[in-house]
Structure formats: C-alpha cells, structure tokens
C-alpha cells in the first residue's frame, strides 16, 4: 500500500493549558489533532494520579498531531510559545501515513 512520510508530534501538557495550546495550533494553521487523557505520571515535580481529582489544576493530556514535515516548524513554534513556561514534554517521531492528501 502506498504510504507517505509524515511527523507525529506528541505534546504532553497540563489539562488547563489544553485549550490555549489547541487555539495556538489552530492559529498556526494546524487543524488535525487528537487528544488522549493522561491518568498519571511522574516528573521533576513528583508523581501524580488523576484518581478522585476534582480540581482541573492537576491532570495532563496528550495532544497528538500528524503533520507533513514541511509544516512541522510552524507547529513547533506555535506549541513552544504555550509550552515554554509550563510543564510539558514535546516529542517528534517519524511515521508513514496512508491518505497523504489529508495532512
């Protein structure tokens, strides 16, 4: 099956910053992303879990964008502005996608 190269960007960020991040992505012309719920984890600020939480202050999400390589820099700049001061991990991986016209 014919496939095309693309980038898979995963941004792990605090749930309270999700809207700001996706707004920034949309302003930068990134329209495709999916969001996963992170239910716990650990980092320099210690371990945490979403169990029993009612406060939006705790909790993180993963925003996943599949994007063409040539659009990666725009995305990264938009994301970085939001992530910079905040807790967050950004990774970029290589993937193949099927319907390239979508990205």
């Amino acid at each position, binding site marked *: 099956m014919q496939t095309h190269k693309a980038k898979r960007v995963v941004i792990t960020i605090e749930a*309270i*910053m999700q809207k700001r991040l996706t707004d920034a992505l949309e302003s930068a012309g990134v329209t495709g992303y999916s969001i996963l719920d992170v239910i716990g984890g650990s980092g320099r*600020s*210690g371990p945490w879990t979403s*169990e*029993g939480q009612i406060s939006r*202050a*705790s909790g993180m999400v993963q925003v996943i964008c599949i994007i063409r390589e040539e659009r990666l820099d725009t995305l990264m700049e938009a994301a970085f502005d939001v992530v910079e001061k905040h807790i967050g991990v950004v990774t970029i991986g290589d993937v193949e996608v099927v319907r390239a016209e979508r990205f």
Partner: protein
Amino acid sequence: MNEILALAADNLLSPIILSFALGLGAALARSDLSVPEAAAKAMSIYLLFAIGVKGGVSVSEHGLGPDLIAAIGAGIVLSFGLPFVAFGLLSVLTGLSRIDRAAVAGHYGSISIVTFVAASTVLEGQGIFAEGYMVAVAAAMEAPAILSALWLVSRGGGRPAGNDGLMREILLNGSIVLLVGSFAIGVITGTEGLAQIDSFIVAPFQGVLCLFLLDMGLVAGRGLRQARASGLGKGAILFGMAMPLAGASLGLLAGLLCGLTPGGVALMMVLSASASYIAVPAAMRVALPEANPSVYLTLSLGVTFPFNLTLGIPLYVAVSQAMTGG
C-alpha cells in the same frame, strides 16, 4: 468553652468527618482505595447544584433584603483583602519565595465550597438558620483573590504568564457558573420547584457528602504523603492553621457589620477561613506556572481543609453564637 468542646466532639464523630478520616487514613496507609475521577466530579456537580438550589429557594422564601448587597460587597472586599493578610503571615512564618507566597495567598482569599457545605450541614443539624444568599456570597468570593495574588506578584517585579482570557476563564469557571446558576434556579422556582426535586437534592445530600469527603480524604492523604517527601516546613503548616483563624476573625467582623443572623455570621467566618482548592489552583497553574503547586495544594487541602472541617467549623459556629447572642 465546654459547649464548644462538646460541639467539636460531636462534629468529630459525625459520619462526614469520619468518612474524611477514613479516606485520609486509607491514603496514608497506602491502600489502593480510590474513587474514579468521573465519580468525584459528578459528586461535586451534585453538591454545587444542590447547595445552590437550596440557597436560592431559601431566598425565595425569606426575601432578599438590602443586606444581600452588603454581604456580597463584604465578601468581595474580604476576597480581595485576605490575600494581603496571608501574604504578610507567610512572609513572617515561612521562607517561601515571593511567587509561592502570592500563589498561596490567592488560595486563602478565595473559598472552599465543600467546607461551606459541611458548615451548612452542621448549622442545619443544630437548627440554626442562615441566610440562603450566603451561597451567592460564596460565589462572589471565588475570584477576586486571584487578582490580588497576581498583583502581589507583579508588584514584586514578576510577570504573570500569558493572561489572555484568564479573567474570563475565572469568572466563567464551572463551579461559579453552576453555583450561581442553580442559585438562580432556586430563586425562580422557589418552594414549588424544590418540592419536585427535594428527594434528590435534600434527602441524599449528607450521604453524598460522606462519599465526597471520603474522596477528599484520599486525595488529601496522597498529597500529604507527597508533601512529607518534599518537606513542607513547620512554618508553612503553622500558617495553614493560623490563617483560617485570622480569616475567620475578619469574617466575623464583616458578618457583624452586615447584620447577618448568627448562622450567616458563622458562614461568613467559614468562607473567610477556608482556602480554595478548585478555582484558584487552576488559575495559578495558568498564570503563575513557576509557583510550586505542591505547596499550595498541600496547605489548602492537606492542612487548612481538615483543620476547618474538624475544629474550625464548631469553633466558628460557637463564636458567632456567642458574639451575636444567637
């Protein structure tokens, strides 16, 4: 004094406090007991909705009176002012950074709705009337403290992070909207409306509160275990118990000035004494990401909340009774 102690003992052995203690103990003992996040959120929606409607219905029964404006005004002033008191106390008692002090201070100007709910339950249990519109005062006190916290940071030369839309976000915060909205529903539908839904919002209320406090105990216990590791100082813990007393004193003053009933004064004390753990932490993460969340969450949820729940509430009720001759 004896009366206060009896009240405190009574309070300590009530199902809601014991449920909190159970959660706290389970978390400290590292049991895997846990409440699903969705269930905890559902319970908080239920509690906000129920307390809002009940407050509104009470207003529709007893009328608003000119004192509503005074009480809301007093609440807003307290919410703006208390962070300065807290900031000062923190400067004396702890070695926290300016930004951490400001962030903590913001929490103590704002309010803890579950503390308010627990206090209302205690008042109801003792047959003490309180103004229904204290729910509106609670809602009015949620946000102003955040501005004071940000001002305290910027005065020190700090620059809160990207604030676009923060104010809107705070004012349209889910818990404020739900509280104000359900209060309005209560006012509009009145006793008749309540009659339709009271076996949902009145009868099971205390039971839901028990399970909710069980969950809060679990969350607080997990936080305390964390905090023990990261070493929150004695000064900070002292602050977590001194500040509610300071807040309650100012709340007492405000309540008396507004001419509230004994129950209303007690609730004003409770609001002033309590610290936010929903709206303010979220706002602080957005605006002051450099502030350490484990400091303010531990103080608010791990120290001040249990302090108010166990000792504070009976004390505030007793003092307000004594001062108002109620």
